[in-house]
């Protein structure tokens, strides 16, 4: 399999040299393969947010390298970094982060507009991704007028419209009710299975995590444990996760 993300020996130290320093990441290495649905779990303060920020190029590691699609993102700066982000990475966040003064379809169009894609092609791509995510009927609505689940679908459409190398999902179900959360997770599963979208899901919710094929448990800035779902059913995997989380707390 083709490796789309290669992280090696990631370290992150906060605080300047002469101040009190905290080490949030203490040398983390892992790979993600194309088409994988991978989860990152850990308690608050475990370093999982730091890891996600570094993977998604929003923050720089103190040491170590990350290659996404064979380019070393730790060497990118300024505009090149912004461009890389808009081309290679799709984001969905817990609080949706939609622009509330743009309609759903305008929100979805933003990343392509940024890349200078022709308006005609943008419209076609919006239509396609909206049909795929069943949000065609709400395209002209403003975010304030649609439900949380719909907002997260619009956010997903915006993330996927550039056909990124990987989709980063940061607690995407955190602000949703249980039904909307399940819908969203099924949708992500569907995208992963049928459209081969690679997904990295950061969560502390075991149910969300049970949709992943592989989970990295982070504790105190290190990978504490790695589990694979393999042939287990989702329920079996869910219970296994609960047990691991229980042990992790000890």
């Amino acid at each position, binding site marked *: 399999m083709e490796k789309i993300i290669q992280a090696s020996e990631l370290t992150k130290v906060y605080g300047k040299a002469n101040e009190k320093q905290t080490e949030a990441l203490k040398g983390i290495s892992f790979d993600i393969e194309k088409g994988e649905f991978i989860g990152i779990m850990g308690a608050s303060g475990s370093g999982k947010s730091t890891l996600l920020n570094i993977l*998604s190029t929003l923050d720089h590691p103190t040491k170590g390298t990350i290659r996404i699609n064979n380019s070393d993102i730790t060497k990118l700066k300024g505009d090149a970094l912004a461009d890389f*982000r808009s081309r290679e990475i799709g984001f969905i966040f817990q609080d949706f982060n939609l*622009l509330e003064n743009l309609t759903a379809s*305008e929100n979805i169009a933003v990343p392509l507009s*940024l890349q200078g894609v022709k308006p*005609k092609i943008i419209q076609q791509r919006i239509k396609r991704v909206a049909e795929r995510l069943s949000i065609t009927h709400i395209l002209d609505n403003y975010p304030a007028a649609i439900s949380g689940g719909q907002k997260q679908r619009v956010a997903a459409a915006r993330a996927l419209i550039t056909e990124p190398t990987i989709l980063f999902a940061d607690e995407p179900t955190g602000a949703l009710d249980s039904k909307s959360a399940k819908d969203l997770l099924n949708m992500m599963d569907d995208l992963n299975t049928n459209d081969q979208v690679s997904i990295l899901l950061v969560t502390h919710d075991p149910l969300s995590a049970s949709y992943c094929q592989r989970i990295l448990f982070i504790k105190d800035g290190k990978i504490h444990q790695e589990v694979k779902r393999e042939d287990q059913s989702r329920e079996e995997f869910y219970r296994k996760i609960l047990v691991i989380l229980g042990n992790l707390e000890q």
Partner: protein
Amino acid sequence: MLWKLSLTGIKGRLKDYIVLFSGLVMASAIFYMFESMASNEAFLKSNSIISMVVFIFRFGSVLLGIITFAYILYANSFLMAMRQKDYAMFMMLGAKGRKIAQMIFIETFLVGIAATAVGSLLGIGLASGVNTLLVNQLNLQISHYAAFNLQALVVTLAFFSILFLIAAIFNARAIAKKSILALLRETSTPAQVKQRPFMLFLQTVLGICSLAVGYYMMSDLMKFQLVGIGVALVTIILGTYLVFRSVIITILSLLKRTDAIALKRLNNFTLSQLSFRIRDYTQMLSMVAMLFALALGALTVGLGFKNEIPIMAKSVAPYDLYLNNAQNASDEKVAALKPTLDVTYSLKETDDTLYYNKDQFNKNNLLSTSTNQMSIDVTYNKLSGDQLAKDITAQDQLRSYLLPEQRGKEIQVVDQTAFDTINAPESSLRMVQVKDFQASYDALHELAQTNQETNTTETADTNFSQRVFVYDTYNGLFSGFEFMGFFLGIAFLTMLASCLMFKILSGANSDIQRYTMLKKIGTRTSLLKGSIRKEIGVLFLVPGILGMIHVLFGLQMFTTLMIDPYHDLWLPFGIFIALYAIYYVVTIWLYTNIVLRPNKK
């Protein structure tokens, strides 16, 4: 304990507080400066030809009061936008609502009063500074102006105390009434108002028609008189408001509907921000446009009067200098002027008659002012010796160059042979024109002065033919006007631009999230900055342009008072645009610092 927390909050946002504080200081300084003039009737009366000016200044004072009030409201909303969350957090921690309301009341009031005190002091300093500057730079003649004026100081302090008291009560009520959650979560979520296209169209038409009516009234004020001013004031304010409410919105939504524009880069975001802003800011922007027009108008008219002075002097006195009994005057000094015209006329004087040589006037015609010369390029009638010989009215032109005791005598313009036979003492009248009157002003003044001293009966007061004296008289009359125009213009501009600045900055906090989000999905910082520049640029530009159009039409009102109110428009417009641009740049800088604060790592 709460006070300590509150002070820590202020420390954390020191930069924003400095912006707020300096804005308030400027407002009170300007108000004081204006009051120091408006409440000084001796100054006003001694510096203006029309007694109306005292009234005009009262009116200006009220206007400044209104805009200061609006200004304080916007500055206050900036303060609240900063502090609301802090105070709501204290309440969440268990502080009582009444205690918090009391705190915000005291904070608002203290900040306001401190700013007013500093501002008044600054005002006194500025007033004397501006006074000397204007007097020196513009060669103005100002009398009876004192920088320190107790009445003005009292008025300023009282007015601002009342304003801040109102603002403080307002803030305290806002905190006490709203729920903690509403305070914490209050970010201005743009309400998506669906406007019916027909209503929008109707408003657009109505807005443009109102402006047209107003402009028409101003262009023909002679016909409509005072009613015209009233109607124009109402229709232009209404028109301005409707233009922002409908015309701009229509243009923006048309742009948004054009995919080729909207789907390019961040345009859609910028356009949406703008249409949200303009809807929200309609009243504010209309006010800015109106004040812009008033301020620029005041500056233009003030400078216009300055330009008028030499032109009026020219149209009253055809020659730059004339010398009676020129045979006694210093030839070298006249030659030093490098005259473009230097003519000497001979005259012989008996007890009851003055004789001139006709041939000399036929050779070099006498220049006289023409009656219908409302133009920058002053032209003169030329009177030949033959005309002067026949026409008694024409002789009056000649008479104006005579010494007072000569004026009652009969004038005879006779030919060379007749002139030679007359047996009477001969003297000469010398007429001089130079290339640039203002450049040679000092030398001309000296010669005119000497002329006056050597011909003792000549006095400046009775003399409206000696150009330097005419110039001095007009300069004295119009300097007051110019000073007021200049002052009002700059004061209004400072206020309106800071109003706009505060309004925009108080919205900045709710924009942080939008810009952060765009940054996350991979928008280049340069694009974000570009979007900010465009958005704020339009917010500054649109009222500015509308204000300028108002002024261009409004100057029509002065066509009856001034020779050409449109002369050298670039100067006031240039000064104004430059100052306005400074505010634009400062606003962008502050706004960018708020919304694009570098990530804390």
